[in-house]
């Protein structure tokens, strides 16, 4: 659009509808340096040869690494094998790709060629013939005469998808047993044991400033949920506990929980009440417990109350005491469901 056109359309009140963009056509062909200067063409050729040469070197390098490197299974040995094989393979392919593209761009003819599209539609005669054949076929098969057969065929095809749709849809959310989230394997008298070594813990051995990652002692829980069984991982996921000991005078305890701790030893569920990450980054000096996923912070000296982050509820506390032999034991299960909220949590 030229300047004079712009002036005329803006000054006229009537928009000039005839002034439409015209097809600019193929831009003027520009010659490359290599098209006019044989030296430049020679230089491009050398670059392409060098790129293919890089590929050849890559292949040779990979072969050399494959046959030449010792069968070393140490970490360093495997690393050097992976590195050399990968670099060889990478350069072998990269050289071919770059060489081919540079060849095509700088040396092969780059004259623009226009190929007009042909019509997608078939000729009227061909279309009429095809429709005629279809109609003849339907008439010949006699579909219209056999009504029951037609109905049976349509029913069979229509019903078939049920065979995969019903199981697929039916299994969405099949497990509605939410009562399993209310309970863990902790119960009265189950000893606290170290995770993963499964040693019961004596209260006298827990020094101030300690943090123990605790699981229920295998011999104190039902056989079908013990470590090694299929159900154990599910049960462990709910029952994991972090136990710490601090100076008893540092502990702030609600009146109804005074007997849930033992001489400064407290045990809380390790499942975050936000979305259920294992919350275990215990800072001994501040007694803060940090969740690595979303930075919820709980104060283990003050009922595991939330002091920072997106969690809404304190961590559930496991009431503990000692048995006659001095081992730490649970007084009961957790008094509320562990982990993140769910609709029927407190029903």
């Amino acid at each position, binding site marked *: 659009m030229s300047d004079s056109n712009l002036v005329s359309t803006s000054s006229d009140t009537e928009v000039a509808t005839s002034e439409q963009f015209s097809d600019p056509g193929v831009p003027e062909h*520009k010659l*490359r*340096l*290599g098209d006019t200067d044989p030296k430049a063409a020679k230089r491009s050729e050398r670059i392409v040869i060098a790129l293919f040469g890089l590929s050849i070197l890559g292949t040779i390098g990979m072969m050399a690494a494959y046959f030449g490197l010792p069968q070393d299974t*140490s*970490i*360093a040995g*495997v*690393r050097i094998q*992976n*590195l050399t094989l*990968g670099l060889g393979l990478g350069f072998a392919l990269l050289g071919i790709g770059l060489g081919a*593209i540079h060849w095509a*761009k*700088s040396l092969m003819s*780059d004259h623009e060629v226009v190929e007009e599209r042909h019509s997608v539609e078939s000729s009227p005669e061909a279309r009429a013939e095809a429709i005629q054949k279809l109609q003849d076929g339907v008439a010949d098969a006699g579909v219209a005469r056999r009504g029951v057969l037609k109905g049976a065929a349509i029913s069979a095809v229509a019903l078939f998808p049920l065979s995969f749709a019903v199981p697929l849809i039916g299994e969405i959310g099949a497990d509605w047993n939410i009562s399993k989230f209310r309970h863990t394997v902790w119960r009265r008298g189950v000893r606290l044991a*170290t*995770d*993963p*070594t499964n*040693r019961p*813990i*004596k209260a006298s*051995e*827990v*020094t*101030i*400033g*300690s*943090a*123990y*990652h605790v699981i229920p002692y295998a011999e104190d829980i039902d056989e079908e949920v013990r470590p090694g069984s299929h159900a154990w991982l599910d049960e462990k996921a709910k029952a994991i506990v972090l136990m*710490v000991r601090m100076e008893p005078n540092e502990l702030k305890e609600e009146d109804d929980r005074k007997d849930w701790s033992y001489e400064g030893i407290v045990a809380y569920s390790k499942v975050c009440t936000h979305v259920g990450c*294992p919350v*275990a*980054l*215990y*800072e*001994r*000096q*501040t007694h*803060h417990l*940090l969740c*690595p996923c979303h*930075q919820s*912070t709980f104060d283990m000296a003050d009922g595991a109350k939330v002091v*920072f982050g997106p969690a809404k509820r304190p961590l559930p506390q496991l009431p503990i005491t000692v048995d006659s032999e001095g081992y730490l034991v649970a007084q009961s299960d957790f008094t509320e469901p562990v982990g993140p909220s769910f609709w029927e949590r407190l029903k």
Partner: protein
Amino acid sequence: MKALAARRHHRFAPVVLIMLALLVTGAVYAALAPSSAQAEDAVTTADDIEHGAALFQANCATCHGVDAVGKADAPSLIGVGAAAVHFQVSTGRMPMQSNAPQAPVKPVQFDEKQTMQLAAYIASLAPGPEIPSAEAVDPTLGDPARGAALFSTNCAMCHNAVGAGGALSEGKYAPALWNTTPTQIYEAMITGPQSMPVFNESNITPEEKRDVIAYVVAQRDGTPGGENLGSLGPVSEGLWAWILGIGVLIGAAVWIGAKSS
């Protein structure tokens, strides 16, 4: 000298020079490199305690008090044991330079002998965790596979799955373990420095501690897959893939589409 100067353009001259330079570097390193702690050889004498007391008065008493009973900003050192002193001083954490969320690792201020003297003095005030023997921390005697199970339960949440370290709250952090010596790892477990809890013998037995050390040391061999990008997981790997990987792909696409000049 003249004969030597005449040969300086000889084609083997650079090779000879490099060999000489390597020899000198190696000799200097061997002479200056810190020797590893020989804990079991160190027999504490009254002399050591006396020297340690003098060092303590000169370097530590300002904050920890002349009797090492602590002040408002610094804890009491009664009963912390030789292990705690050795850990804090041999990693450079103590003497602390300034008040910060936690004491960082910095160049070590005392040599091994002075550190042992300080440790002997503090240990003489009250019994506490002792510096482990070389055998107790020898990673070649530990089982890295068992150590991995213990590490992932007890240590990995703060120190990262391979010991690359990680952030805690309010400016505190769990340091990376790449350069921590086996002795220091053991001492940290039994003394619980700063934010770290204590892992005593009933929690992780001495043998298990050696397994943990074997696992931590094994991570220093790197990974079979190549560059680990700091072992920091999806953050560094994602940055690498999205910025560098996609950047290179976009660049290649632009190059392929551009007309040759």
